[in-house]
């Protein structure tokens, strides 16, 4: 089975901003290792975020992720990517196709979806590594400490307790827009440290993917 840079291998990978252009696609097609590493790391995170709301099984998410990359690289090798600047949309589209097949497969075999949900390590934490994650946690603690207690409880109910958001907002006497703005402001406070950590980490060495 293809083993495209499993989530464990993605620890500490550098997600620098690179242009997805013709040159990038050429390097990717030519098998340039650093470009492949960046490509997989960059889109793995987005794929996982996309799939989390659709699949409950970590194994199913991993299966879809790997199959997506398998097909994208097959398309690259056969020169099917005609719009390099739309590489991201291509990956998204491929992921949608694989996901659809996954739904069909799981409706025939319900064992996958019925799997007990296990704790799935956040890819964002894995990607950044333990030290950066600790810094991030400290910053988030700081942001939360600066919030009124009510806002902290609101976030706890929504994200930790996973209660129905409408119910939570009703209980706290706020509307959904208040919750959105709260998240937006907190994210903005956190984002500068996040960007700094992303920029400071050099690319790591990863085991070559088995083809």
């Amino acid at each position: 089975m293809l083993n495209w840079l499993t989530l464990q291998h993605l620890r500490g990978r550098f997600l620098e901003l690179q242009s997805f252009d013709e040159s990038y696609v050429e390097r990717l097609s030519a098998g340039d290792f650093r470009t492949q590493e960046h490509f997989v790391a960059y889109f793995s995170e987005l794929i996982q975020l996309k799939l989390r709301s659709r699949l409950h099984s970590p194994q199913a998410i991993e299966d879809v992720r790997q199959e997506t990359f398998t097909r994208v690289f097959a398309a690259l090798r056969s020169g099917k990517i005609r719009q390099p600047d739309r590489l991201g949309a291509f990956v998204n589209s491929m992921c949608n196709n694989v996901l659809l097949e996954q739904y069909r497969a799981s409706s025939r075999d319900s064992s996958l979806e019925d799997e007990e949900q296990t704790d799935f390590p956040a890819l964002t934490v894995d990607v950044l590594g333990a030290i950066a994650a600790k810094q991030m946690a400290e910053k988030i603690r700081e942001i939360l400490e600066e919030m009124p207690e009510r806002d902290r409880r609101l976030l706890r109910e929504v994200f930790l307790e996973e209660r129905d958001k409408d119910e939570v907002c009703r209980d706290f006497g706020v509307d959904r827009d208040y919750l959105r703005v709260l998240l937006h402001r907190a994210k903005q406070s956190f984002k500068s440290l996040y960007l700094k950590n992303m920029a400071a980490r050099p690319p790591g060495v990863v085991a070559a993917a088995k083809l």
Partner: protein
Amino acid sequence: MDHDEAVRQKATEKYLLGELDPELKDQFEEHLFDCQDCALDVRAAAMFVEQTKVVLSEPIVALPERATAPAPSAGWLAWLRPAFAVAVLALLLAVVGYQNFVTYPHLMRAANQPQVGPWASVNVSTRGTTTTVIKARRGEGFGLLVNLPPEEGFASYAADLYNPAQKLEWSGPISTATSDEGRQIYIPGRNRQPGTYALVVRGITTAGESKEISRHSIDLQIQN
């Protein structure tokens, strides 16, 4: 969905809160995979949410009540914590004590005592290429006694000192009550490198124009 629309609609927050209907969600994801700005925004927000869960799952006592807890929060106020503050204050006390009882008295003695050291005479009227040799110990300064030319019609004088790398090291006025007075320029010896220095004396006219009137080479030889 384009980028401006995604920002305007706070699509990142809605996406992570599960508030986008299926069609908008698909549209946002299609945009997200192509837009690095939005991708970064979503990743940062997702990281925030994940870590918030970790922090909020800690015992409540770990997060002080904002309205009632006077304890300083983490950040720059952390240095006020007693253990750290004591160590810092002790270090500062040691530094201040050393400076007041050792360094400063030594500097005062050095500054107030007569200094004996090498010197050379620089006669501005002299033209020529002779080099003045000065022998000084390492770290020892030396003096240059500048004899200004009588009545050359300049309102004032200035001197420039060039180091062996021919870089201007110092420039300053030479003030005189009368033009036949000599003036000493003391060149400090700290970190002084041996080599050929150049002292350029300039005359300044009443109009403020500067004219080089002499240039002297000083060969500084450091003796151990």
